């Protein structure tokens, strides 16, 4: 199930909230577990079994680790952690990467069957959330969870189940057993959720149509201006799609009494690539830092070893984004940039005017999105070539002008909404004005989003259209 759908907004959500609030406190997690599983199984009911297996596996491994630690059996605890990690990663590998490996091996002549399995929804997110639970219990960062309902509710928690933020068990442990609910928290959840919904439905989906045009364009019709326009549209689409989803997660969490960390912090205002990654998908970056980069020695090692560590982390970050080699290239692209910035570029940049730093960052990020978005290497080659001046369709064509003017207002809105400007202005409004404007803005956001969602199946059948 996805948040940006009519049945979620006008059926699932009201029922979940209503029953949640009339249920006594101690049964609320159980209710959440039930609706979480419905949410999860909506698209592919068979995978509920897989989900239950993951829950039981990590719950049980947590218990084993805790028991071993009580008995001072460090070796046993380590084995349990290793088993948990291996099994979780094996499941992730099997469902997500099997076909990529199989196709690649077939390409070099080794026969391995392609399985064409549907990807279990959110598997990359929830695997990362649960597999570190035994680690945290081992490290003493988290208390063992003895109640399987509470644990299962954590794993499947629907607001963040399928698209993050990636929440570590230790961050949510206390809230799983005890959390407060207040109108203040609910009302702030409503605001964050509505902003997220509007970002996703009104901005991302809309600007995404412009990217669709350029993604579908054959190489011989690509122009340089068009290629840049397309990739700019994709950057806005991806940001609003993903951050909108994270906002909705945070908002829904608050409506249910949870507090999640923020996942995006205006990434496009960054002045370096390193800063960009501190502002983009924060929970993923912090996960890799904590469970991969630092265990490998982080930056408290020799320079060559640190660069090696960075390469490993960014290769993993890249391929985490999807089972396709272009994501690996995309990750390594950032590895190179971040190593360069750490080595000397960062110090050089700091001395340059802010505008140059912004242009430098945006330029490199835009190029990275081309690598990210065009999965076919052949087409990626022509797309990048088009961006850098050797477009088969020339520098510019009239249709670029048409699409640019058609989308100009959306692009302007998108660019402004990528900066903290609106939030700053909002904070400056007198409380009295906020009180009047807020409900109007909220209702407008909900109404327009609903209109765009209803329109999604607007598909006139013109049988007489011959």
């Amino acid at each position, binding site marked *: 199930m996805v948040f940006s759908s009519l049945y979620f907004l006008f059926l699932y959500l009201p029922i979940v909230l209503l029953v949640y609030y009339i249920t006594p406190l101690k049964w609320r997690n159980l209710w959440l577990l039930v609706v979480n599983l419905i949410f999860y199984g909506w698209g592919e009911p068979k995978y509920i079994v897989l989900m239950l297996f993951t829950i039981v596996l990590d719950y049980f491994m947590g218990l084993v680790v805790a028991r071993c630690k009580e008995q001072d059996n460090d070796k046993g605890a380590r084995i349990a952690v290793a088993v948990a990690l291996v099994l979780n990663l094996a499941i992730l590998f099997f469902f997500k990467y099997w076909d990529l490996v199989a196709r690649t091996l077939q390409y070099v002549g080794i026969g391995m069957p392609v399985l064409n399995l549907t990807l279990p929804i959110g598997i990359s997110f929830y695997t990362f959330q649960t597999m570190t639970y035994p680690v945290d219990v081992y490290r003493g960062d988290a208390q063992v969870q003895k109640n399987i309902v509470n644990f299962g509710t954590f794993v499947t928690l629907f607001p963040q189940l399928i698209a993050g933020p990636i929440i570590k068990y230790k961050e949510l442990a206390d809230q799983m057993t005890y959390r407060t609910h207040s109108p203040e928290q609910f009302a702030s959840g409503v605001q964050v959720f509505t902003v997220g919904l509007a970002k996703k439905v009104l901005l991302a989906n809309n600007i995404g149509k412009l990217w669709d045009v350029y993604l579908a364009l054959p190489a011989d019709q690509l122009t340089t201006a068009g290629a840049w326009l397309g990739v700019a549209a994709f950057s806005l689409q991806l940001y609003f799609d993903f951050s909108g989803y994270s906002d909705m997660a945070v908002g829904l969490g608050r409506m249910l009494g949870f507090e999640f960390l923020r996942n995006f912090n205006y990434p496009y205002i960054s002045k370096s690539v390193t800063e960009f990654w501190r502002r983009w998908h924060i929970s993923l970056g912090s996960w890799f830092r904590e469970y991969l980069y630092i265990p490998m020695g982080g930056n408290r090692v020799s320079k060559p070893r640190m660069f090696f560590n960075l390469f490993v982390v960014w290769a993993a970050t890249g391929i985490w984004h999807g089972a396709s080699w272009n994501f690996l290239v995309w990750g390594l692209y950032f590895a190179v940039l971040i190593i360069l910035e750490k080595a000397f570029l960062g110090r050089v940049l700091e001395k340059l005017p802010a505008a140059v730093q912004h242009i430098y960052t945006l330029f490199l990020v835009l190029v990275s999105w081309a690598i990210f978005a065009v999965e076919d290497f052949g087409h990626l080659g022509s797309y990048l070539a088009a961006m850098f001046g050797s477009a088969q369709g020339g520098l510019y064509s009239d249709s670029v002008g048409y699409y640019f003017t058609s989308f100009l207002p959306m692009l302007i809105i998108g660019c402004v909404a990528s900066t903290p400007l609106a939030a700053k202005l909002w904070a400056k409004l007198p409380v009295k004005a906020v009180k009047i404007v807020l409900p109007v803005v909220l209702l407008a956001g909900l109404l327009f989003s609903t*209109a765009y969602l209803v329109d999604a199946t607007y598909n006139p059948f013109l049988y007489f259209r011959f």
Partner: protein
Amino acid sequence: MSKKYCIFITTLFCAFIGLFLVANAAAPDREFSEMENRNLEQMPALSAKSLLSGEFMKNFETYTTDQFVGRDAWIGLKSSTERVLGKQENNNVYFCDEDTLITRFDQPDAAKVSENLNYVNTFVENVDIPVTFSLIPTQACIWADRLPAGAPNASQTDLLDQAKATVPGATWADLYSSLWEHKDEDIFYRTDHHWTSLGAYYGYTALAEALGYTPVPLDTYTETVRSTEFYGTVFSSSGVRWVSPDTITTYVPDTGITVTSYTYDSAGNPVEVPRSLYDTSFLSVKDKYSMFLGGNQSLGVVKTPNADKPKLLILRDSYADSLVPFLTPHFSEIHLIDLRYYKLSLSDYIQQNGIDQALVLYSVPNFVTDSNLFWITR
């Protein structure tokens, strides 16, 4: 924010989602959408099988969206918002000057085009009667100056040239020049993909030489307004609600003309259904263009009182429906075959019915996407 105000915001949100929950549950489901001209999704049947396969969920999603209260109003709100935001198209329809909606015409699949042209060629070689061939350029070509600036628009004239050159055995009729000459008149509907009766008249004059008649001057006829409330297919697919309706007019009187549609009943027995040149019952529904010959049919035969005139066969799309009235003074019988439905041998048909000449006439967008022209070679 005070606690009281937070309770207000909370209530507002819950009321919004709750209101539509209740309204959707209470409102009766609609079977059919006139606006979209299709059946709306109904509540899917719940079974263990449909649940496990995910079939139920998929249909349920479409169902909730199709049956959402006030669906048409939401869709209107969306397309108006798009316009305010500077969009110049919606759902493949351009918002054009002079209150006109025009369907996008993108570069067709070249292989498909030459395949279809070759079928026509084979047909010309197969039959021993004269064949006239032409394609009708549409709004995107003739009214290109109404399109938004720079809007992508594939060339229809290139396709016309290619068609003329590829089928040398047929007599080519140049509809393009005739329509282009009158492009400032109301030769197409502004909200429908068809040509108007006036446009069909100019098509008829362009066909005269090839088909061997002298066109009747337009002022011989009196124009009859049939409807001023016509919203066509392009209106439907665009989702826009701000354009004014089209007017449907006719010129040629239908006195003494009979139309018979040949079809099969559910048991597979051939049946003859009487139709008419103008079926005014369609004027009270949305699909008003079907007033011409009563809409789609596999095989229709129009008989005129002019028994001494030749018999014409038209292999065609729906543009021919409004052209036929103008042809009636020049032929004793006009046979209309729609290759989407008619799958029998055409050479047999021509022989058995004593057809004197044939016309292959399609609009450009239909011709280049049609996947039934293969049957023309039978």
